């Protein structure tokens, strides 16, 4: 009964999406206010039905209704309740439902926070979002219905993939989808502006906070995924250039470019056509990511759906979205003109350069990800492109991005003089070079030029971000007044660039100075790595709710202190899968990582031991970047732009007004 209710709710949501896109788009084209006004209630109703559908599926999981095929495949009665609920998006069908639900959530957000926008613009935005929703809902209903029943239900379910029975995996998909799908808002704003011919600074100002919020979620989702891979896969790596990771990273790179390009469009009215194109690309890459993950063309942990019909459907959806929006762009772009002038050396052009670099980086990843698939599809042989390719291409493209991220904020708009900027920053740059080389030489290896270069870049990023903030503050008489007078987006930018510096330190030091040992250890044996002594004390048997585990006992001697680490080797009962649960001692400057391999003779085990310096900085940097995004979103002018009809000042920015 409940699953059928969910199915009906899903069909109703599709009907609402049809109404949400047809009437408002036609109404906006014809200038019929009543038709346009349908957009908001239809969007909200669609969200309501999606919530009902999602709730029904969640209920089926919670109540162990194994007559539903999807529940039987991904749950088990011995699975704890919180994992049963997260199992809703633990497989293909449910995660597509989550995708649709999140699109509904973004639609709801647009209906709520769009009071200041022109009626026809809102109608177009919601109409375009409705079109996307139609595509996804049709996909779910026609190829991957999560409510499908089994004629003869099994006594118990097949259980959730043990890898997904983890907190990081509970949160990672919703966050990533919030980012992916959030880019559909930026996309819809761009398409709506193309349709209505209203590409201007105001459009960029409205579009910016939405893009930023999507970017924040995407950043968080990717950071979480990387962190999960690190502690859960038992290999100690944080990024594998796996096609699925790339699928989330490409939209991130383009979204990052989009944020910067939007700021130029908003402040200077330049790059309009380029910004629109980026918005289209960013969402197209999100859809492509969904296609790559869901179509089963990839050999990956994530590729759980391998049905060619599904792949074909998403491929067609992709072709319609990309083809349609690019066609519209081609029709309208010639009428979009930038009337602003700027010199060759100016902040505008530096931001353009940053954009080109980021997009090129995304393009090179796209090449490495798609090339093997295309060759395979054409029957030209099976190849794969390994991490060395991505490392070799990515590093040289990113180095200038880091340099630019430091120096661009110090260039004025319109026209700049390289000589003046150099005079201001020359000493700073020299100081960074000395610090970078000095730090590497003192703490690591005096001959390691790669680390020196990377640390110099990181120090440069951090120092120049703070330097440009202080020079802004100094324009005021008193530093307190100066600090208060800065907008939150300035602090946001500073924080995001600092986060990038932190990230770079983590990547460099953990990449170049990790110590790894794979050894056979008998009980009582001691192995030493990087000033730490690991003593293996043996294993014991532990029972979990749906698994049994061999729990290792390691004593770690670090100078005068000693502590214990307990890695596990779990055997999940239902799927009879083995799982490595690594034990990690986290720290600011290093992580110690122990993972059990396989049991050997006489109680000995093969063991993996790592010491990874500064690896936490990688995710820390991601979180700082995210915080920077949040600061920018909370900037007053977006709230004013969203609600021009209200005169109240939010409490948090009251001090701004008082100053």
């Amino acid at each position, binding site marked *: 009964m409940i699953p059928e209710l969910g199915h009906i709710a899903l069909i109703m949501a599709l009907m609402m999406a049809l109404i949400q896109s047809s009437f408002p788009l036609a109404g906006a084209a014809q200038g019929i206010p009543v038709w346009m006004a349908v957009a908001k209630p239809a969007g909200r109703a669609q969200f309501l039905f999606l919530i009902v559908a999602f709730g029904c599926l969640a209920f089926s999981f919670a109540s162990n209704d194994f007559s539903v095929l999807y529940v039987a495949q991904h749950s088990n009665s011995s699975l704890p309740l919180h994992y049963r609920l997260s199992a809703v998006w633990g497989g293909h069908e449910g995660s597509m439902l989550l995708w649709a639900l999140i699109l509904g959530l973004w639609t709801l957000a647009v209906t709520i926070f769009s009071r200041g926008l022109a009626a026809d613009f809102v109608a177009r935005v919601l109409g375009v979002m409705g079109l996307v929703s139609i595509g996804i809902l049709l996909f779910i209903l026609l190829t991957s219905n999560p409510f499908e029943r089994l004629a003869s239900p099994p006594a118990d379910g097949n259980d959730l993939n043990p890898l997904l029975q983890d907190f990081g995996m509970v949160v990672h998909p919703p966050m990533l989808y919030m980012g992916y799908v959030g880019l559909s808002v930026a996309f819809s704003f761009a398409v709506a502006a193309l349709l209505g011919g209203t590409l201007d600074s105001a459009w960029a100002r409205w579009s910016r906070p939405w893009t930023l919020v999507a970017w924040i979620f995407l950043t968080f989702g990717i950071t979480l995924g990387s962190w999960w891979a690190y502690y859960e896969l038992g290999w100690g790596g944080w990024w594998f250039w796996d096609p699925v990771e790339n699928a989330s990273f490409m939209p991130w790179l383009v979204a990052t470019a989009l944020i910067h390009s939007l700021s130029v469009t908003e402040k200077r009215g330049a790059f309009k056509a380029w910004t629109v194109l980026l918005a289209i690309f960013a969402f197209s890459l999100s859809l492509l990511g969904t296609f790559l993950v869901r179509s089963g063309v990839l*050999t990956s942990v994530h590729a759980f*759906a391998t049905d060619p019909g599904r792949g074909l459907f998403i491929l067609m959806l992709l072709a319609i979205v990309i083809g349609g929006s690019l066609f519209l762009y081609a029709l309208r772009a010639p009428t979009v003109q930038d009337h602003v002038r700027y010199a060759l050396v100016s902040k505008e052009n530096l931001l353009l350069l940053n954009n*080109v670099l980021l997009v090129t980086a995304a*393009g*090179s990843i796209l090449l490495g990800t798609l090339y093997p698939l295309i060759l395979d599809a054409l029957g030209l042989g099976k*190849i794969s492109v*390994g991490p060395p390719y991505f490392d070799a*291409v990515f590093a040289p493209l990113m180095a200038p991005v880091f340099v630019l991220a430091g120096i661009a904020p110090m260039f004025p708009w319109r026209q700049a003089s390289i000589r003046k900027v150099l005079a201001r920053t020359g000493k700073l740059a020299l100081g960074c070079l000395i610090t970078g080389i000095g730090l590497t030489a003192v703490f690591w290896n005096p001959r390691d030029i790669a680390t020196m270069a990377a640390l110099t870049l990181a120090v440069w990023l951090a120092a120049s971000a703070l330097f440009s903030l202080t020079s802004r503050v100094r324009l005021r008489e008193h530093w307190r007044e100066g600090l208060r007078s800065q907008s939150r987006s300035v602090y946001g930018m500073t924080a995001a660039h600092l986060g990038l510096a932190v990230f770079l330190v983590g990547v460099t030091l953990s990449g170049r100075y990790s110590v790894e040992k794979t050894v*056979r250890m008998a009980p009582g044996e001691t192995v030493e790595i990087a000033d730490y002594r690991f003593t293996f004390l043996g294993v014991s048997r532990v029972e979990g709710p749906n698994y049994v585990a061999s729990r290792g006992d390691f004593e770690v001697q670090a100078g005068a202190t000693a502590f214990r680490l307990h890695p596990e080797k779990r055997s999940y009962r239902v799927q009879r899968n083995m799982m490595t649960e690594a034990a990690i001692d986290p720290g600011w400057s290093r992580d110690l990582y122990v993972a059990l391999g396989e049991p050997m003779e006489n109680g000995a085990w093969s063991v993996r031991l790592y010491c990874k310096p500064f690896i936490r900085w990688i995710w820390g940097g991601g979180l700082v970047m995210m915080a920077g995004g949040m600061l920018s979103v909370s900037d007053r002018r977006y709230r004013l732009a969203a609600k021009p009809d209200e005169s109240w000042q939010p409490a948090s920015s009251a001090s701004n007004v008082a100053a």
Partner: protein
Amino acid sequence: MTRRQRQMFVVSGIVIGVSFAAFLALTAFQKNLLYFYTPTQIAAGEAPTGYAFRVGGLVVPGSVKRDPDSLNVHFDVTDGGATVAIAYFGILPDLFREGQGIISVGQLNAAGLFVASEVLAKHDENYMPPEVADSMKKDGHLPIDYKSWKK
């Protein structure tokens, strides 16, 4: 500088940048492409020696031999037509099992032994790597009792 010259400057800058990136990408590509060979192809001498590639197949039951004192492992992989012997040092993935489909990256040495630097097994017991399934289907060697890798 006139507007036109400035535009040309920016455009040529972008073109140079993108070609540099393309050059980097293609060079890196050439060096890092990994080809896939089946055990049958290796037996026929089609696979190169001294050059890394990937091989895939089912682990032959009873062929896994672990060295008692070190982390050396030897096992055979088959696609139904031929088998290839693989040597690996280290910890095998959690889902490595006899009879299971795996993919391995490594080089063929002069004696015809495949020295693996990486062994990959999918986190799903029903799973067979698409490359392996394809080649076995083509040769008509797909075991009937093996659950379809398409869910």
